């Protein structure tokens, strides 16, 4: 842990908190920015992947002979080309298995073979010539169905973890997790009002507009290069090397500009396939997924089935709360239910609370993280139940939340005791917001809900070089997914006391910088930001040392103020301040290059809370819901670049709106995904949404020098429940199944009348 990270809460910032243009902006408005699919290489081949049409099938045989004979085909790989290098390490084996099916195809879209050819047309034709002999097996895609004793068992080596006695039969229930404290049964006995309800949510996709793409080049000597759109190129390097049995140092990975990720690009999907094709063909190979492949073979969330029970006394004090959460993780073991179970009641101060999570395996693509993964579904169930409880108690929904909100010193529902947190502040701001009291029309309703996310830090390394002319080259290892280079430049400039424009930030490749964890967990502004600040302080120490040399005084006698070295006091001597530029210009004669570094485990990310308010209009005759007005109130700790903080709030809300109303994975009886495209997987379009108002609260995180918390994820947590509550207030039906698509709302309305 670094020492001097305690924030100076009274600090006045010079550039932090302003809204300068982003350094990568011009490239992105002129078409010059290079994303995953935009790279080419001399002699490049095009790779394509053959995928299973079956949800669950044993692969008896793969015959590639005919495809090999097609002119222009340069390499074909199947499971036989990918030996198991996992040494029994389950995580690595699962990545290998997910990249290319082994004994069985576990979901529709599971890769079974891949081709590299001189053109996309030849590669496509070659795929048609590969003959796969499948033995189709019974499948299961529904989370509740997969838990039944008679469900087809997908893996014969999974025995439910976390139950006593240990099961002797394999099942699709990978794990049971339990969190909480107090005595829930006794708590419920104390309650005057208890509300219990069951909910379902359908799977959604992150829906980044850029499909996965990479360009791999591996030489016969085993060294390789990979260009890839990812949230974590160091992770891609390590995992790909492990899967393929390569030495890590021989694989250099460069992160392209990334066209959205939201968690979906924190996993390895097909990069080892591109590397293996390139290795076999001894040519560069580019693999770009189609949108259909993205939907069928990457990143959806869990679909869930959740039971919630909450009890309170007449005065509105919640005494006991309980939830059982079943999350499917696709065809591989995940820990998605853990996160749902941990976050479900995190907004509240509860004496008796218990959550139980079940991680379930089904014949669907491997679940991936999606912005505060697993939290939105749990919040939907809990926050809907809270509103029902408020209705029964005759208390305003916001007042019930304010009364029971967690605060500093509250023992969280997942265990630890909270430090200073922002749930109370967001609720107070919501209560006083003009949106709360604006008039509503007929068939219109207002809803609100709260949300929580942990945020985290992780392994981080940055390097900051002072150039001859006093400008600064900053290297970070976390891909810039939404303007983070601007925030990094702001923090470096703030610390060094130089203008924002004098700092240029690049995302360094894996050979140029130490390891960095993935851009996830809302960690970049927190952890790369903190590493940048600390690297700047390291550079300042060296700059002061150089100034001391130039003055012939001791380094301890020099201080740094507003971009200048100054003698610490009258005893140090009388010297005019030396600017960073002047010290930089003299670097060659004072000891050579000046650089600051920092590498660490960035722990101490601050938990983050949000409250959302939404107005809807429901057409009683069609079940269509229109979002009329939307307000996000969230604690950012400290907003480094407020425009991009607002952008995170708005973007998360929009994704939540899509999830709430229309987005869902629809499976047929055959276990095949029916809507693998943007036509029928309906993410919100521009005309679906109103402006999204934002209120940034700043309750500083004591563990970051500027008080930063993560802001990226929390904003997707409240919308599902906020909209369900608004629909309930508009037309009097409690929707328990997400998405609240028009047929579901109309059915609920008809069922009531």
């Amino acid at each position, binding site marked *: 842990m670094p020492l001097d990270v305690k924030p100076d809460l009274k600090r006045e910032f010079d550039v932090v908190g302003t809204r300068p243009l982003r350094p990568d902006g011009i490239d992105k408005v002129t078409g010059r920015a290079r994303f995953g699919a935009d790279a080419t290489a001399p002699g490049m081949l095009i790779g394509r992947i053959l995928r299973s049409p079956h949800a669950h099938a044993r692969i008896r045989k793969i015959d590639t002979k005919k495809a090999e004979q097609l002119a222009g085909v340069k390499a074909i790989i199947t499971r036989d080309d990918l030996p198991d290098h996992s040494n029994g390490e389950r995580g690595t084996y699962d990545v290998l298995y997910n990249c290319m099916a082994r004994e069985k195809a576990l979901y529709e879209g599971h890769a079974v073979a891949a081709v590299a050819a001189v053109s996309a047309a030849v590669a496509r034709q070659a795929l048609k010539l590969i003959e796969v002999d499948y033995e189709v097996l019974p499948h299961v895609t529904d989370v509740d169905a997969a838990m039944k004793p008679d469900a087809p068992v997908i893996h014969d080596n999974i025995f439910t973890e976390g139950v006593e006695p240990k099961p002797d039969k394999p099942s699709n229930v990978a794990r049971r997790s339990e969190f909480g404290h107090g005595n829930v049964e006794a708590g419920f006995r104390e309650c005057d009002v208890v509300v219990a309800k069951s909910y379902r949510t359908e799977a959604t996709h992150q829906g980044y507009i850029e499909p996965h793409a990479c360009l791999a080049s591996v030489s016969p000597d085993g060294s390789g290069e990979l260009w890839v759109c990812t949230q974590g190129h160091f992770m891609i390097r390590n995992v790909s090397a492990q899967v393929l049995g390569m030495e890590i140092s021989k694989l250099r990975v460069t992160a392209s500009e990334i066209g959205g990720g939201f968690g979906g690009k924190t996993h390895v999907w097909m990069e080892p396939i591109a590397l293996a094709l390139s290795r076999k063909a001894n040519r560069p190979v580019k693999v770009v997924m189609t949108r259909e492949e993205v939907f069928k073979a990457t990143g959806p969330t869990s679909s869930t089935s959740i039971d919630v029970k909450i009890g309170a006394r007449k005065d509105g004090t919640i005494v006991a709360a309980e939830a059982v959460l079943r999350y499917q993780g696709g065809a591989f073991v995940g820990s998605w239910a853990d996160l749902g179970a941990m976050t479900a009641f995190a907004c509240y101060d509860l004496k008796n609370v218990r959550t139980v999570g079940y991680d379930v395996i089904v014949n669907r693509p491997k679940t991936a993280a999606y912005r505060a993964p697993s939290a939105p579904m749990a919040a939907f169930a809990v926050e809907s139940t809270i509103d029902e409880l408020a209705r029964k108690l005759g208390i305003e929904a916001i007042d019930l939340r304010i009364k029971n909100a967690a605060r500093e010193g509250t023992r969280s529902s997942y265990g630890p005791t909270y430090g200073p947190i922002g749930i109370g502040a967001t609720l107070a701001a919501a209560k006083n917001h003009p949106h709360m009291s604006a008039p509503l029309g007929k068939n219109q309703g207002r809803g609100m809900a709260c949300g929580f996310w942990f945020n985290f830090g992780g392994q981080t390394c940055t390097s900051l070089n002072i150039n001859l002319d006093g400008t600064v080259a900053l290297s970070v290892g976390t891909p810039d997914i939404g303007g983070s280079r601007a925030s990094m430049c702001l923090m470096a400039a703030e610390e060094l006391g130089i203008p924002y424009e004098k700092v240029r930030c690049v995302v360094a490749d894996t050979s140029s910088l130490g390891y960095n964890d993935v851009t996830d967990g809302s960690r970049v502004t927190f952890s790369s930001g903190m590493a940048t600040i600390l690297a700047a302080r390291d550079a300042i120490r060296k700059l002061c040392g150089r100034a001391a040399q130039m003055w012939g005084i001791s380094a301890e006698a020099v201080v740094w103020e507003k971009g200048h070295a100054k003698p610490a006091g009258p005893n140090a001597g009388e010297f005019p301040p030396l600017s960073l530029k002047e010290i930089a210009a003299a670097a060659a004669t004072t000891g050579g290059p000046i650089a600051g570094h920092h590498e660490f485990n960035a722990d101490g990310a601050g938990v983050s809370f949000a409250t959302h308010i939404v107005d809807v209009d429901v057409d009683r*005759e*069609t*079940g*269509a819901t*229109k979002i009329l007005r939307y307000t996000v109130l969230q604690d950012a700790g400290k907003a480094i670049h407020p425009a991009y903080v607002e952008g995170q709030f708005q973007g998360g809300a929009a994704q939540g709106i899509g999830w709430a*109303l*229309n987005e869902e994975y*629809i499976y047929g009886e055959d276990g095949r995904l*029916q*809507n693998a495209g943007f*036509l*029928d997987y*309906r993410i*919100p*379009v521009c*005309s*679906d949404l109103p402006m999204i108002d934002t209120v940034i609260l700043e309750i500083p995180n004591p563990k970051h020098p500027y008080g930063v918390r993560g802001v990226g994820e929390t904003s997707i947590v409240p919308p599902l429940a906020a909209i369900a509550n608004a629909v309930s207030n508009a037309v009097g039906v409690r929707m328990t199944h997400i998405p609240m*698509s*028009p*047929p579901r709302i*109309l*059915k609920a309305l*008809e069922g009531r009348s």
Partner: protein
Amino acid sequence: MRYEAPVSVEAASTLLSEAPGQSFVLAGGTDLLVRMKGGFVEPDLIVDIKHIAALQEIRLEKDGFVIGAAVPCAALSENAELRKQWPGVVEAANLIGSKQIQGRCTMVGNLCNASPAADSVPALIAAGAKVRIRGRKGTRSAAVEEIPVGPGRTSLAKGEFIEAILLKKRKPRSADAYLRFIPRSEMDIAVVSAGVDLELDKAGAVAAARVALGAVAPTVKLVEAAAAAIIGSKLEDKALQALAEACSAACQPINDKRGTIEFRTKVAGVLARRAAQIAFQRAGER
């Protein structure tokens, strides 16, 4: 695959009649290219008809409008007279896809794609539109509702293609309207839709009506009982109720990823009622 861009309908007809294998007409391509990419069709020949000048025009002749097969839907709304006389048809055509799609897609393409959910088709059928078909032996005309015979299938013979859509001249006190239901505000395929064309008598009562429903059966349905339910009325609540019931009764929809049987059945009536009210108001203002 061969690509040809003839400059006359005769040349196009010859190409389409004589080519072996699968040949397709390309106008906007917004359905054809999607089907090609999905591997659903592998054309041997594509005949691009956009270089045939006559097919690029909207002409107002003495009997009504002749809309060339290659006219993109965006051009329909740019024609003030067409918009005035056939607002329902233009609205329907302008609901297909995005602005990007509008710049390319055509009503004839929408018709020949033969989807029961095609937006322009219920409006055209309600409007009593006809098509002029070019074959090897000359031209023939047919009612729009005769073209699709099932999802993805048309009654056109090998070598035949539609040259133009014919809309008659608007009578006094008549108007049309089209509504569809989609879950989002744009970019979706109709879950259910309704086109209504009304003609009022001098007293302002409905003298003639045509009601067509989309996405409730394998092909767009012209519902005569629905029309009968409002003829003679001034769309009083009772008549509207009868219209909606007749529409719902005529539905034979399926459950699919876009909607349920119950939803389509109920909402078909709702949309027909709402569209009738719009058409009624428009007709009354003429």
